[in-house]
């Protein structure tokens, strides 16, 4: 069944929106479907076109029908005159007439539809994206009573909590909060048809769903009884999407078992369709009790008791009558007592922060970037739509001027003004609707491409990118309004004009078309807006280029990356070390591999930063603290070679550095500059995490958190001193890194088929994540700026062509009197370029102001970057020159005799 071709959805949608929602309506759709299927066997493409055309016909017919019912006239006049049917006949006739007229000037029609289509398409696609990320409401019950709980501290204003912190605030706030709960994100190792897959899930408290007011689509959701003892609740609630995708919405799924992380879990229910977790963009495939978190992570340890592990997203529901201010007072009280009880974790700056859930999009810290970025994109696409509408306006003004004579003639021989207006109106609306249709098609395609694009995102992101009816309606409204305003108004004006004088005026041939001034103004505006967009795009591109040139200080050679977790329930620390040693040996034997190394947390990891408490004799810690916070990682002896980080003084780690010998660390150059100035750092003793260690080597500097950062001090602890079950293996190769990454995974599974493979990737992709934001920004703004330039050029081309046509007679006279064709081209081109120069100048001034606003988003270039501000006018000038030269050049081919004889 699924192999039979599906009719185009736009057609089905069109009919569904007009047909009565009864069996009769369904039967009509069924008829079309049946015929479509039989036609599709003879040619899918033609069948699709046929389907849309038929759907349009049926829809038009039924619109008349339903209107008629609404008027309470159930019996139709068979005659059809003076009735709705009669009106519909007139509409059908007008549409036919308009189609014929539009078909007569295919270039005009194509250009107008393309312009509008691009503008509406860009808007619809981007708004749908923004809607999916930001606007769409979460399906929470009484959302006004929900509060997000965060922690603020040094360097972060809205961080997640540790589980013990959550328990403390929950217990300390029962007088203001009805209940508090939350979740941690977790990657599940789920058995699938081909081996296992790692899928994102939420490990939630038992009361999570009841606090949010989410009800099961099938079976039941968790209760407090599912969240009692560690490791004792192997039950799972499936996300609706995953249930649909992987299990074909199997209604009998409840009660069946899934193997997750090597253990059977019973499916107890399915979450509702509109609930895709509480972190936007990260759609959990399943929900598990938080008491299973450690077992699922496979890392051993006890997250639920670790106050240092801050990854719990907490939400609470206010008691009826309790206010946010009361809740804040309670949170402050709890913060104060925690600062007293746990000074190691709760520095003086740390405190709980409450934010109403309804005010949060992803996280207040992320929102601060997200909202301006989204607004910027919407402004950009809005400008593109503006330019597109200006194009349409300009074309329709030109046409209206063209048709003044036709209209005057028709009025003179007795046409009714009403009929004329109906025809003009139909033509404008038809044109804008076709543009709208093209735009929707474009938006659907680009959203599909976006979903399919293999972006190097740090997390698997799933967004519901369905077209948004609101923006669709808005875009259609804008286009129709533009069509009516600019198409009908001038035509009406000429229809009202004095017939005799219009006829006389036109025959004289010298009539200055009304609207020419307006069209010139439109071109000036278009050029100005294009310049602003182009400058923005130029700045982003230059800034991207500058970031690309940054040397992260590691990973320049092709390197494969494998992230694994060694299940702590089956491996003791020494067994885990044995496993890792044999795995590194195996990987070292793979062809092309030059170096293999291990680190717990690779630099420039977007979601993870960790820091150590460092004390150095003679260097005072910052005020209010007993130590310095320094980023660190735990690496083995092979890491520096594998990552390409040179050890510039002393030595790297060595197998002889055992836990029983003196503990040793490496530091980077910036660390020595900051903390160990003067004499050689090698051999000096410092305190890291309350333990005295010896510095045995110094590495070159490298980026730690961000590409754009100033050098940061860094400490490498020795892997032999501390075991971590979750590690990142790096293998530098002379060969293809993508293939090596897969070979590494095969090697890891060959040693133990149930090892948890978290990720296989390459250094190139790992570094691409860091640039992703800039790259997307440059791509989006750049793409739309080019679109704007294209549209503005089309507008300019149209204006110059029209001027040429209008001045054909004048050009004919000039040429027949012996004017040099080149001077004629110069004259006509020059008129167009004057408009461009004016628009360009205005645009540059505005762009300079905009650039200052953007300066915080730029890297490595000044806001008034000379390359951009010189390059853009040059490019624009060349494009504009071409757009006005082509039609101007055509003027020289005018035959003087026929030009003079005309009219």
């Amino acid at each position, binding site marked *: *069944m699924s192999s039979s071709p599906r009719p185009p959805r736009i057609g089905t949608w069109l009919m569904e929106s007009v047909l009565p929602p009864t*069996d009769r309506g369904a*039967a009509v759709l069924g008829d079309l479907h*049946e015929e479509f299927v039989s036609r599709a066997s003879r040619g899918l493409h033609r069948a699709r076109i046929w389907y849309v055309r038929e759907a349009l*016909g049926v829809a038009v*017919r039924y619109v008349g029908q339903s209107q008629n019912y609404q008027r309470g006239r159930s019996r139709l006049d068979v005659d059809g005159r003076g009735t709705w049917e009669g009106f519909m006949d007139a509409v059908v006739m007008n549409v036919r007439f308009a189609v014929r007229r539009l078909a007569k000037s295919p270039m005009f029609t194509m250009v107008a539809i393309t312009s509008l289509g691009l503008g509406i398409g860009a808007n619809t696609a981007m708004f749908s994206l923004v809607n999916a990320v930001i606007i769409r409401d979460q399906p929470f019950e009484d959302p006004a009573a929900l509060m997000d709980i965060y922690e603020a501290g040094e360097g972060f204003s809205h961080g997640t909590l540790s589980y013990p912190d959550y328990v403390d605030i929950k217990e300390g706030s029962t007088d203001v909060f009805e209940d508090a709960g939350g979740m941690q994100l977790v990657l599940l190792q789920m058995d699938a048809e081909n081996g296992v897959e790692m899928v994102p899930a939420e490990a939630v408290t038992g009361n999570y769903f009841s606090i949010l007011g989410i009800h099961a689509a099938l079976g039941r959701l968790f209760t407090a009884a599912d969240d009692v003892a560690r490791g004792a609740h192997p039950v799972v609630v499936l996300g609706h999407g995953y249930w649909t995708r992987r299990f074909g919405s199997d209604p009998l799924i409840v009660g069946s078992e899934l193997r997750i992380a090597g253990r059977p879990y019973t499916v107890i229910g399915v979450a509702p369709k509109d609930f895709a977790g509480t972190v936007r963009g990260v759609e959990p495939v399943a929900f598990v009790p938080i008491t299973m978190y450690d077992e699922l992570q496979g890392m051993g340890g006890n997250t639920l008791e670790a106050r240092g592990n801050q990854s719990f997203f907490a939400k609470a529901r206010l008691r009826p009558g309790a206010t946010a201010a009361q809740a804040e007072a309670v949170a402050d009280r709890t913060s104060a007592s925690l600062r007293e009880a746990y000074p190691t974790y709760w520095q003086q700056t740390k405190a709980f922060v409450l934010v109403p859930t309804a005010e949060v999009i992803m996280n207040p810290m992320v929102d601060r970037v997200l909202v301006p970025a989204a607004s910027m994109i919407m402004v950009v696409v809005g400008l593109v739509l503006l330019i597109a509408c200006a194009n349409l306006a300009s074309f329709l003004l030109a046409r209206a001027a063209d048709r003044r004579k036709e209209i005057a003639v028709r009025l003179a021989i007795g046409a009714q003004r009403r009929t004329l207006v109906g025809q003009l109106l139909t033509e404008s609306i038809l044109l804008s609707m076709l543009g709208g249709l093209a735009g929707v098609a474009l938006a659907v395609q680009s959203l599909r491409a976006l979903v399919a694009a293999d972006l190097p995102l740090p997390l698997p992101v799933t967004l519901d990118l369905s077209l948004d009816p609101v923006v669709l309606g808005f875009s259609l409204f804008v286009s129709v309004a533009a069509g009516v305003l600019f198409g009908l108004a001038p035509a009406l004006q000429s229809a009202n004009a004095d017939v005799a004088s219009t006829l006389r005026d036109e025959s004289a041939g010298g009539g200055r078309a009304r609207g020419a001034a307006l069209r010139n103004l439109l071109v000036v505006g278009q050029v100005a807006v294009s310049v602003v967009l182009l400058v923005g795009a130029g700045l982003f591109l230059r800034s991207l280029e500058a970031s690309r040139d940054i040397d992260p200080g590691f990973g320049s050679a092709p390197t494969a990356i494998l992230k694994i977790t060694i299940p702590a329930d089956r491996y003791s620390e020494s067994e885990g070390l044995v496993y890792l040693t044999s795995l590194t040996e195996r990987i070292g034997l793979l062809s092309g591999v030059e170096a293999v190394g291990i680190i717990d947390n690779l630099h420039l990891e977007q979601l993870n930063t960790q820091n150590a408490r460092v004390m150095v004799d003679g260097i005072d810690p910052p005020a209010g603290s007993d130590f310095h916070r320094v980023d660190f990682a735990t690496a083995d002896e092979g890491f520096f070679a594998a990552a390409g980080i040179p050890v510039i003084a002393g030595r790297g780690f060595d197998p002889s550095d055992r836990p029983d010998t003196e503990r040793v660390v490496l530091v980077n150059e910036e660390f020595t500059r900051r903390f160990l100035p003067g004499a050689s750092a090698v051999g000096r003793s410092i305190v890291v995490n309350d333990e005295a260690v010896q510095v045995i080597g110094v590495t070159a500097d490298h980026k730690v958190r961000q590409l754009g950062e100033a050098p940061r001090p860094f400490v490498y602890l020795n892997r032999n001193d501390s075991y971590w079950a979750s590690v990142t293996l790096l293998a530098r190769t002379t060969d293809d890194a993508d293939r090596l990454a897969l070979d590494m995974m095969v090697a890891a599974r060959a040693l133990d088929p149930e090892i948890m493979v978290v990720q296989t990737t390459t250094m190139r992709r790992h570094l691409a994540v860091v640039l992703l934001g800039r790259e997307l920004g440059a791509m989006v703004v750049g793409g739309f700026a080019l679109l704007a330039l294209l549209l503005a050029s089309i507008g300019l081309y149209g204006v110059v062509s029209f001027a040429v046509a209008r001045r054909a007679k004048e050009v004919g006279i000039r040429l027949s009197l012996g004017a040099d064709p080149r001077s004629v081209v110069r004259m006509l081109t020059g008129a167009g370029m004057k408009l461009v120069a004016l628009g360009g100048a205005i645009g540059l001034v505005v762009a300079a102001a905009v650039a200052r606003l953007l300066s915080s988003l730029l890297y490595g270039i000044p806001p008034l970057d000379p390359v951009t501000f010189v390059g853009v006018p040059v490019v624009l000038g060349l494009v504009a020159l071409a757009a006005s030269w082509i039609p101007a050049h055509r003027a020289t081919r005018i035959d003087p005799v026929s030009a003079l004889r005309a009219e």
Partner: protein
Amino acid sequence: MGREGYLGEFEQMLLLAVLRLEEDAYGVRLMDELEARVGRRVSRGSVYVTLDRLEEKGWLASEMSDARPERGGRPRRIVSITPEGLDALRKSRAALLNLWAGLEGALDLP
């Protein structure tokens, strides 16, 4: 009934096609039948709208079949003529035959 219950041309054509198709009278087949017999592709929208009208006048009755996969999981609307519909056809036929009678010569027909 409008105009003393005489049928319009299109209504007549549709009713006759329904009669011819017997058990098999639904949208797709009706359009094929009309095209085959009249030699003209009729507008789909008009067919449905007219079917609705004829049913409202009580000349047609319709019945929904089960949903079918080859129709995208949608039913067929199978229409049949009611006794009143047959009456109307008879009346129209008689009226038209009376009017046609004896005009073969004027139309150069055998």
